[in-house]
């Protein structure tokens, strides 16, 4: 008797992999890449993020972080002032002074990111040169890197991509002959630990994470590095790793029981793990995940959902909701569509899903009003106005800040979508 091997992918086709994409160019309601600092500064615990920008950048960061950060955060802004705009030499001296003051005040910082912003990009303040200069000055104590989180270059999660890509350039070379696995993307520690346990049980290893929790523990990279993207928005980071010889393992993203299975399976295959051992090892967690999402399925099946572009998580999440919870995606908007990294995901989306890239917010809201989905996933600026129009919303930011990856978060992820509908049903006001 042949063992009952469950299909790793639900039956595809006809999916969205070659569907036309609505490309829009208008007002976008997306955070800029600076916002990634809010969780990156919690993830890399001895790193500090210094935005070189305007008062707007500082205001953005505190508005986005205002409810989350109570202690003095590990980020700050060097606010460019009128006199800095007068001459570039002066601007560099000013930056050095600010960095000196910061490092004197926070000597425990091991890794300092100088983060470029719209104004610093426009005035062509070369932060890479500043980082090199300051790295020499503070050598042995604090390493100084730079990346851009500007709104003219990056949307929301692309800031994390730029940050990780900057780290890749600085990783040690791995010349060992044995293959190693790298999990790429800032995951909550609890999720990271779950994955590390599963890989250990599977016999996949050694396994590293990028970013590491401490600046001194960043993984090495080389031709025998195999990497799994944990997030769909890491195009630049993937390219930087490939430039250093590493190989990307193509997989669904680890959302839901199926996505997580596929993602782990890609690694198991690359490391020559026996198929039956793989299935036996993941079976308990996979079953647990399926049980955990079952009760949300009752509420969500058949419900129509629209994603407005926010984090680039939209397509994998829509796939999870469609294939595992029976939801009907109406429109799935993403700020940027990486077709190659998302090929498996797109293939699993129902063919009648409208995929849109970029945004013209007023037109998109017109479509939302016309189609009236049961649930609209959107940014914080739009949620309350849509609620006031009688549309139920899920604010997208929680999907970026909460643990949602892997088997043991599948139930929580489903619940994030079920809760707004349940709330709508229980309220009598």
């Amino acid at each position, binding site marked *: 008797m042949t063992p009952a091997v469950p299909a790793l992918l639900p039956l595809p086709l006809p999916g969205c992999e070659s569907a036309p994409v609505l490309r829009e160019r*208008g*007002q*976008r*309601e*997306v*955070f*800029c*890449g600076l*916002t990634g600092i809010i969780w990156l500064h919690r993830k890399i615990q001895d790193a500090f993020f210094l935005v*070189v920008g*305007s*008062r*707007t*950048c*500082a*205001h*953005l960061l*505190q*508005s*986005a972080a*205002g*409810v989350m950060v*109570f*202690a*003095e*955060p590990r980020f*700050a*802004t*060097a*606010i*460019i*002032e*009128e006199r*800095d705009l007068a001459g570039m030499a002066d*601007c560099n001296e*000013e*930056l050095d*002074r*600010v960095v000196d003051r*910061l490092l004197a*005040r926070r000597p425990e910082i091991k890794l300092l990111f100088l983060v470029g912003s*719209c*104004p610093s*990009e*426009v*005035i062509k303040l070369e932060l890479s040169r500043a980082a090199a200069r300051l790295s020499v000055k503070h050598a042995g104590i604090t390493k100084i890197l730079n990346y851009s989180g*500007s*709104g*003219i*270059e990056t*949307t929301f999660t692309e800031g994390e991509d730029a940050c990780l890509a900057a780290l890749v350039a600085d990783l040690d070379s791995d010349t060992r002959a044995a293959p190693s696995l790298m999990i790429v993307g800032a995951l909550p520690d609890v999720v990271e630990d779950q994955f590390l346990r599963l890989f250990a049980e599977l016999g996949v290893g050694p396994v590293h994470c990028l970013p590491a929790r401490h600046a001194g523990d960043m993984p090495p990279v080389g031709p025998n590095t195999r990497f799994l993207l944990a997030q769909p928005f890491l195009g630049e980071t993937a390219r930087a790793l490939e430039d250093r010889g590493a190989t990307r393992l193509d997989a669904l993203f680890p959302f839901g029981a199926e996505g997580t299975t596929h993602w782990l399976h890609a690694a198991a295959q690359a490391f020559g793990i026996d198929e039956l051992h793989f299935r036996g090892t993941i079976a308990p967690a996979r079953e647990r995940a399926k049980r955990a999402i079952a009760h949300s399925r009752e509420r969500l099946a058949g419900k129509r959902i629209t994603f407005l572009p926010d984090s680039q998580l939209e397509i994998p999440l829509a796939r999870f909701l469609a294939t595992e919870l029976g939801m009907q995606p109406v429109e799935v908007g993403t700020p940027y569509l990486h077709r190659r990294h998302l090929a498996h995901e797109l293939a699993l989306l129902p063919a009648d899903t409208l995929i849109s890239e970029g945004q013209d917010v*007023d037109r998109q809201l017109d479509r939302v009003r016309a189609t009236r989905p049961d649930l609209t996933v959107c*940014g*914080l*600026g739009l*949620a*309350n*106005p849509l*609620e*006031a129009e009688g549309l139920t919303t899920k604010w997208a930011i929680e999907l970026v800040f909460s643990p949602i990856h892997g088997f043991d978060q599948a139930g929580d992820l489903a619940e994030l979508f079920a809760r707004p509908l349940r709330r709508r049903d229980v309220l009598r006001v």
Partner: protein
Amino acid sequence: MQLTVWTYEGPPHVGAMRIATAMEGVHYVLHAPQGDTYADLLFTMIERRSKRPPVTFTTFQARDLGKDTAALFQTATRDAYARFEPQAMLVGASCTAELIQDDPAGMAQAMGLPCPVVALELPSYQRKENWGAAETFYQLVRTLADKTARPAPRDGRRPRANLLGPTALGFRHRDDVIEITRLLDTLGVDVHLVAPLGASPADLATIGAADFNILLYPEIGDTAVRWLERTFGQATVRTVPIGYAATRAFVAEVAAVAGTDGAGIGTTPGTSNLPWWSRSVDSTYLTGKRVFIFGDATHAIAAARVARDELGFEVVGLGCYNREFARDLRTAAALYGVEPLVTDDYLVVEEAIQALQPELVLGTQMERHIAKRLRIPCAVISAPVHVQDFPARYSPQMGFEGANVLFDTWVHPLVMGLEEHLLTMFRDDFEFSDASGASHLGGSSPLPPAGGVGGGPVELAAATEVTGPPLAPPAGGRGTWSPEAERELLKIPFFVRGKARRNTERFASEHNLTTITLDTLYDAKAHYAR
């Protein structure tokens, strides 16, 4: 460059958004990169507005720079007019667009839009949010006011006033307007126009038809009001009615300007509870509580007066973050004999609070962060604020009801009346012990065993570690306390322990004592006894 952890004010275009969002029939086209759209959530999430702010951002990207951004601006402006059909438009640039020098003003003029267009020049690298709001309101008033409008002859009609200054995202502005409108009604005065909050361009056109102006929020309305004084000869009521006495003074000033009789108002029992609540014996414990005040100049100055005169506190620190009103603040600080603190540097404010060890902080959301870390009771009196500072209930700061609100919200964070004495009398009872914390702190916030103002060595050590050394380190540091004295210090209730520690260390320093003994502790107590 200025190193900034938290900032008190946003950029000036956020001030302009506060005006546009407050009004009806206005649309603002802001030349800005995509990240700047975050500002929408200030209104929809923090203030819980049910509508998006009437702002179109051009959201240009790097690839647009150089050739396309001007066309982008014009397309966005044309589309915004077609979609929203506003009575008037604002156009301007955010900090990044200012650098690429597209000249929104010139472009908008060339477009010949069929409505008045106000081009805003808001220098982002010099100015901040309140200035941007004031300038925007002034430009709107100047452009839209019908200069021929004049008040109708009195002929027995009630006098009419404009209420100027309230905006979107203001600290309790909506409730203040309701409260002051009611108060004016009892004075026999009608409100002709509230602006910018709720006003349309058509309403603004009639601004000259009021008999006089009431300037509720000088930070926002002062520039416009000065222009109105010059242009229409309207008188201005400038007393800000925050607190019982200020409200009485406000009533008197309005009555004088309007020519009505305000003599009896506010004196009948029940108009305001504050005077009696403050005199009631339970409030005895408020006497001389040391309070540190920081916020926008108007709210901070008003808070100092209420704190000293109406609640019996001692003002030990007074400051504001808006330099435009520095002179007013310095004048006020002189009244209380304290060093004025005019700064927009959060770290400086933190150092001041740490050095002064007050028993209560009246500040902004930023001081709430500081007070929380130092475990000092805190109430918010001014923007910038948090979503919880937009309460569902009616909660004005101005007028007689506002005075009641101040009493409640400032006294609430302090240990309540008799409870404070019970803590002393029954300190060995587990329900009243330090370890249980005070009931107003939720009962479940265990307090560290010793240290500063309700804070212990752990808290203080952590605070020192992240913020650098305090301004004035204790004379000999913690190590100079003898174990015996240290134990005795623990017997002092936590809410006065910080003051006792500070006074003792100062006493020791002044008397060149290297070790603080039991005697030093009680010598200091006697020395500072009032």
